[in-house]
């Protein structure tokens, strides 16, 4: 198998953990909006972040279809236009699938720089759709959300890859 030099060989991803992380991201999004920051425009979309992460690392398991369904759920939760997030997530899933072969050859900070356009495209798309449909322009801080998501990329990479970084044969001296 061809892979970059000096990289650790990872364990297979657990589908249950992937599902769990997506649900957690959804919960975090809801918590953030319901209890904490209200409908501020600059808040990072955790679900989009985790979705793009898995679409890049596990493109055969998480892709455009999963993104569409999660988008619909987000739409209903946010009471936005039905299909708005579905479209944005679909596009993000597609773009992530497109770049997944290339992006993993870079180190993590460079990866963050490369996923920024993916998030930005989705945000611009959402903004265009809503302003066309008659919504109000929520201010320039909307463009902060993709940037925050890209900054969170290294952190999320550490957290979500942690289960795959465990030793393949744990023993008494190496329990994890």
């Amino acid at each position: 198998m061809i892979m970059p030099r000096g990289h650790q060989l990872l364990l297979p991803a657990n589908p249950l953990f992937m599902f769990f992380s997506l649900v957690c991201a959804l919960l975090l999004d809801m918590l953030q909006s319901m209890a904490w920051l209200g409908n501020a425009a600059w808040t990072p979309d955790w679900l989009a972040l985790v979705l793009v992460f898995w679409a890049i690392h596990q493109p055969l398991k998480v892709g455009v279809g999963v993104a569409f369904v999660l988008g619909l759920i987000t739409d209903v939760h946010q009471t936005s236009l039905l299909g708005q997030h579905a479209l944005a997530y679909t596009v993000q899933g597609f773009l992530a699938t497109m770049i997944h072969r290339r992006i993993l050859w870079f180190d993590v900070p460079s990866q963050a720089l490369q996923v920024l356009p993916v998030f930005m495209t989705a945000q611009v798309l959402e903004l265009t759709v809503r302003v066309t449909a008659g919504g109000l322009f929520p201010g320039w801080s909307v463009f902060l959300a993709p940037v925050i998501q890209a900054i969170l990329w290294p952190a999320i990479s550490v957290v979500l890859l942690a289960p795959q970084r465990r030793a393949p044969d744990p023993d008494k001296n190496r329990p994890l």
Partner: protein
Amino acid sequence: MPLGTLDRTPPPFFKQGTSALTKLLLFSAISLALMYADLRYNIVQPARWVLSLIVYPVQWVALRPQVLWDQMDDAFVGKQEALQSAETARAQLLSQAVRSTQVEQLTLENQHLRDLLQLRERMNTTAMAAEVLYEAADPFTRKMILDKGANSGIQTSSPVMDERGILGQVTRVHPLVSEITLVTDREHSIPVLNTRTGARGVAFGESGGAPLLELRYMATNADIEVGDILTTSGVDGVYPPGIPVAKVVKVERQADSVFARILCESLARVQGARHVMVLTPVKTALPGFQELPPPPQPIPKGGRR
């Protein structure tokens, strides 16, 4: 197969499933169709019902920390603070007692005067108390979610108020929750009456994004001042008349414009209301109300040639 993972199944070389591009096109088309349907027709409501039932448990879990925090907050309020709030409540009660004793007399007087003038009796609207669950996360609109839905008999277009004034209107009813569009939403408009002058107008949500209302179509020389209180006028058949809506905070009169730009601040707590009342719309409370007849069936195309 993803780069650098130790997968135990061999990667599928030829059976990769539907291509990402096909899926993108398919799902984008579905999304666009859904959005169009949601904007123009009322046919996606069943889908929202089903999805909202699926989302509800997750939302319930996500709300727990907030609820716990509120309870903690209530539990740890100091004794001094509690005594103080009781004191203020007592003082308020006293000041209201003076007025409430007058109410009986005034009601009677009003009754007689109305009978004299043969005005239609002011109807009593029924109300239902509800609690605000959270503000909707959509930054493009101003909406709130209530903890009562179709199961409690909430209907669409019901006016919603808190103890200070009109908060908004129920625009969507789900099985367990309902959405209200706030008076500050861009797509919301409400007929109002200036209590000082008696002039009627229509207040719209501010389109600039600030949580304000704009009183449009008032002439530049109209008699309106900062501090005027606007109440519902009741001409719309939705809001009962005489409920406070907003206070004028800014009047801009420009020489080149026919209309003055008048900004008002909502009297109700549009940011941070917790307990609200859902009223029945006036029209359905009227004695002779009946639903509009269904629109006539369109003549099928190509039926007669």
